[in-house]
């Protein structure tokens, strides 16, 4: 088992730099998820760690060894690809065994290990099949088996679930979490799906345009985003962001409401962030008032869109029955402790 440390890592393709100096430490046995919008450099960063791409500068440490000039197979990492990348001409057994046989494992040892892994992933009866005779979920298991069998120090996953349908994706997610518990190996997992990221991660690394925006446990990123990008990226529906004026002793909200604020605040225009679940209907005055424009029924709860004037609107999560109807006028209270404030540069105050 091993920790992974990145120091000042940069990567350019030709003249374009796509990774702009990343420093990161992944603890031994930790499950870290890289998230971020498409094209932000998640895969590239993972491929730098695997050795499939070579960094332009910086250091990569795996288990106390600087590996940036070590060939991929000797870094003690294995990788699960988005397309599974099984060898089409080999059956499942040989797919799993290929790496071991190249490493010169003895026949008996190889056979025992392949069968043990196949057993663990419940693919023992598929060993003779070719990849094209497997379902998507089965292929995924074979790919994972191929990664496990080499007993790497670090597992790398590049969007391993994005080719599966929704039901299977949820199941496999649980299974990967269980696998992590069992193996206690260091895992780095790339996804653009925040649900996957939040559910799996010990810590999340949110990337944007080749830079780290924030690192931390999912709840921390969700509750205490460092800036507007993080706040806006995580959470569905997106966090409500309102233009507010800070004044004497509080914040002036659109529609005339105000929130008291005790701390020191810069004067002028700020951005207030409120999550949909932190807004509650009230029979009193409330801090926000407006007209319901749309109700999205989710079953247990519903998302209500409220126009609050100044051309701004908010979405809040409504729990009680019966739900409001378009045209209703509603007042909302906000949890002051949960409210987030961002300055003109988008940094949280």
């Amino acid at each position, binding site marked *: 088992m091993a920790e992974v440390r990145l120091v000042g890592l940069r990567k350019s393709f030709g003249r374009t730099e796509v990774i702009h100096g990343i420093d990161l430490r992944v603890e031994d046995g930790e499950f870290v998820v890289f998230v971020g919008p498409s094209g932000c450099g998640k895969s590239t960063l993972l491929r730098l760690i*695997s050795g*499939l791409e070579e960094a332009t500068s910086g250091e990569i440490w795996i288990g106390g060894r600087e590996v940036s000039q070590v060939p*991929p*197979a*000797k870094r003690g*990492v*294995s*990788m699960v*690809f*988005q*397309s599974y*990348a*099984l*060898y*089409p*001409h080999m059956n499942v057994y040989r797919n799993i065994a*290929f*790496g071991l046989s*190249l*490493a010169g494992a003895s026949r008996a040892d190889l056979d025992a290990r392949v069968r043990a892994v196949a057993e663990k992933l419940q693919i023992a009866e598929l060993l003779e099949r070719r990849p094209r005779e497997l379902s998507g979920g089965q292929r995924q298991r074979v790919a994972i088996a*191929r990664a496990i069998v*080499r007993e790497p120090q670090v597992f790398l996953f590049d969007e391993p679930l994005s080719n599966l349908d929704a039901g299977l994706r949820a199941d496999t997610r649980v299974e990967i979490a269980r696998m992590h518990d069992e193996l206690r190996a260091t895992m780095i997992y790339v996804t653009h799906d925040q649900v996957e990221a939040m559910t799996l991660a010990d810590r999340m690394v949110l990337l944007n345009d080749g830079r780290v925006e924030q690192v931390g446990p999912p709840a921390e990123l969700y509750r205490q985003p460092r800036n507007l990008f993080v706040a806006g990226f995580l959470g569905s529906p997106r966090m409500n962001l309102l233009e507010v004026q800070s004044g004497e002793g509080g914040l002036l909200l659109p529609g005339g409401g105000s929130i008291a604020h005790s701390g020191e605040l810069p004067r002028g225009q700020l951005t207030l962030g409120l999550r949909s679940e932190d807004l509650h209907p009230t029979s009193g005055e409330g801090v926000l008032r407006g007209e319901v424009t749309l109700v999205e029924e989710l079953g247990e709860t519903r998302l209500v869109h409220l126009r609050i004037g100044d051309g701004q609107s908010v979405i809040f999560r409504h729990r009680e029955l019966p739900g409001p109807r378009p045209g209703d006028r509603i007042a909302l209270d906000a949890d002051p402790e949960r409210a987030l404030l961002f300055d003109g540069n988008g940094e949280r105050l």
Partner: protein
Amino acid sequence: MMALARALAFRLLVAVLLVYLLFPFYYAVLTSMKGGSAIFSVDYWPRQIDFSNYARIFSEQPFALNILNSVLVAFAVVALSLLLGLTAAFSLGRIRFRGRSALLFAVLAVSMFPQVAVLSGMFELVRAFGLFNSLLSLVFSYMIFTLPFTIWVLTSFMRELPREIEEAAIMDGAGPWTLIVRIFLPLLWPAMVTTGLLAFIVAWNEFLFALTFILSNEQRTVPVAIALITGGSEFELPWGGIMAASVTVTLPLIALVLVFQRRLVAGLTAGAVKG
């Protein structure tokens, strides 16, 4: 009425074309089975079935040996071009390096060389290596035809293989040679069959080098042997024997081409269209 006339005209056109395409070979078969003086009369339908011409080409000259020579040369050429072509295609198709497209272009340029332009230089080389009148001179010189298209076709197929499979193998610890032999070779099998067949046909049919570098009847390949068949005497027409020899070497080729029809057509058009 119009529709019927059109359908008839179309069928007639197809029939005419079929006769045009197939008649010459049919006539060769017909001629090859004419014995004695029957050769002097023109026939449209078979009148006799006489295999004496076939017997003669094998008894009066080393035609069996010529066939063996052709087979040996063709197989060696196929094996060598596939080996060299596959390794080159790996570099050209899977690795990015400077000068790659220039190299591909240069390879294409070689396929445009007129054969005579290298004839005198090649002749010198063949003699310098002591290969004159040896089949090896042919194996070696045919590379100028087979390598360029082998490289082009294999490179274009190689490029289409998914990157992740190669990367998975790299992560599994495969070096370049393992990649080529254990991953790409099995995946490129169809392309190898196609290019191998094309190389086989080229080597089987080549004439100028075979005519120039081989001196003795026993070392000759089939095309030259056929071109040099003459009658036993001034007054004997050699055509029966020539046609028998022609049919003998063409039938297997036609069979091969028909069996691998789809593959061959795909390879031919891939080479030309992508080139």
